[in-house]
């Protein structure tokens, strides 16, 4: 039995969002009588944490605590339009829509607070903790709750805001083919270290080291979750997962969890990642999308590491022991290209 070690590198540019026929998303915000702010979206949280990010963005712009933001998502019959959660677009598109809606709602809130305190709205500031005070006069203040009550019961006004972010459709230039299909690009580099068993054809990923440049990490802990989970998923695509192992033949396709291969807790590599921040001009607080690229970048790195380890280049996923052994056999017969 021979175990060969190898190392491979990949570099990825990943677009945030898509071109489509124009790519809009909307957000609507209104205050309740209790001074909570409801953010109505048609976007879906797939588990990546969209609700958390949208709460952070709304709270930051409104100037209220995150606990008083209620995210109401995903009734596409009644909610404002959203293209959807895909193309690593949600933080960018919906985040920008929320910034616009929250800015309008904040202005409405400060107008009411200004009337109650008999000062100009421009002289007010929020403390992020549920109070609105006259700048430089912290003693002269009103709670967000009292402002919301006054808006409803005294002035007959809504504290609300409308937001939309549209990435306009970009047509390719007829002469050059140049176009602007996305809003910004995130970047990644992954180094994979693998061990190939040339007798069994099995590949073990020992370590995945990545650097991700994502504009701004709005929630660093969740960014790390995406990177670690994505590293696993990339490894899974590189070495395990398929519904048609002999594509286009459907034979031996898995039908349940027992047959659909994925790496389990005993098969994981050491994960290591650094986050780099180069704020994007169009992103909410400079953020770009990180979602999908985390599962992409490990794949070519692992394929390259296998080549480095044993000199065979497999260009069909997943790189199963069977494919690897056949390629090793072929390489032993034919001289290497």
């Amino acid at each position: 039995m021979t175990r060969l070690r190898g190392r491979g590198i990949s570099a990825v540019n990943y677009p945030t969002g898509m071109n489509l026929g124009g790519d809009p998303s909307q957000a609507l915000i209104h205050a309740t009588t209790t001074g909570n702010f409801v953010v109505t979206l048609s976007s879906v949280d797939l588990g990546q944490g969209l609700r958390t990010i949208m709460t952070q963005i709304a709270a930051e712009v409104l100037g209220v605590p995150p606990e008083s933001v209620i995210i109401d998502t995903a009734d596409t019959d009644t909610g404002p339009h959203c293209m959807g959660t895909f193309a690593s677009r949600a933080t960018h598109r919906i985040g920008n829509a929320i910034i616009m809606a929250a800015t309008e709602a904040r202005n409405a809130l400060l107008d009411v607070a200004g009337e109650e305190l008999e000062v100009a709205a421009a002289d007010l500031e929020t403390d992020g903790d549920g109070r609105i005070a006259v700048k430089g006069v912290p003693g002269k203040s009103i709670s967000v709750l009292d402002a919301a009550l006054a808006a409803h019961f005294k002035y007959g006004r809504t504290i609300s805001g409308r937001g939309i972010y549209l990435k306009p459709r970009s047509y390719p230039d007829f002469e050059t083919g140049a176009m602007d299909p996305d809003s910004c690009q995130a970047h990644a580099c992954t180094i994979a270290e693998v061990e190939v068993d040339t007798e069994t054809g099995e590949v073990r990923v020992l370590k995945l080291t990545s650097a991700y440049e994502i504009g701004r990490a709005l929630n660093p802990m969740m960014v790390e979750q995406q990177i670690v989970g994505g590293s696993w998923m990339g490894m899974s695509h590189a070495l395990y997962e398929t519904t048609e192992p002999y594509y286009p033949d459907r034979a031996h396709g898995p039908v349940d969890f027992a047959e659909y291969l994925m790496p389990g807790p005993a098969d994981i590599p050491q994960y290591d990642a650094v986050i780099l921040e180069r704020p994007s001009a169009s992103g909410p607080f400079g953020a770009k999308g990180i979602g999908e690229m985390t599962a992409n970048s490990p794949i070519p790195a692992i394929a390259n590491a296998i080549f480095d380890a044993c000199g065979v280049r497999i260009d069909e996923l997943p790189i199963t022991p069977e494919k690897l052994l056949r390629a090793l056999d072929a390489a032993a017969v034919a001289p290497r290209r």
Partner: protein
Amino acid sequence: MRSSFVSFTLNGEEKELLIAPGQRLVDVLREQCGAMGTRNGCGQGGCGACTVHVDAVPMLSCLVLAELAEGCDILTIEGAARDRTLHALQEAFVAEAATQCGFCTAGMIMAAKALLDRDPAPQREAVVEALSGNVCRCTGYEPIIAAVLAAAAMLARLPAAAA
């Protein structure tokens, strides 16, 4: 075959339920007891999302006939926290960011709790082994393994009764 009454304890509470023949424990817990924390993932023993404790043994509730629960003591994720205080595992899952979509989380915690109940200071290999029947699509497993080890460390610092 006729339905029959089955009695068991669920998270310390006596239950007596009319159970149809062939009903699975996972469905009885979710639909008749309202204990929705236990997930029905694959329904065939492949994912671990439905893990509960039956007489302190972790079991896949999608593979357990509810009639066989007669006289048993069943613990689900709803019974993991006590007196509105999270179990150390729940605390650690939050702190280590060991949950994303959350679909696997209840099963992961119940599988890990069974391990810590019998081996309060497990090595990493024992944690990996204990979780090997539970599938997670989101986290890459490392944060979950880290959370179980952190919970064990947390419990070691607590007085025994609190565990």
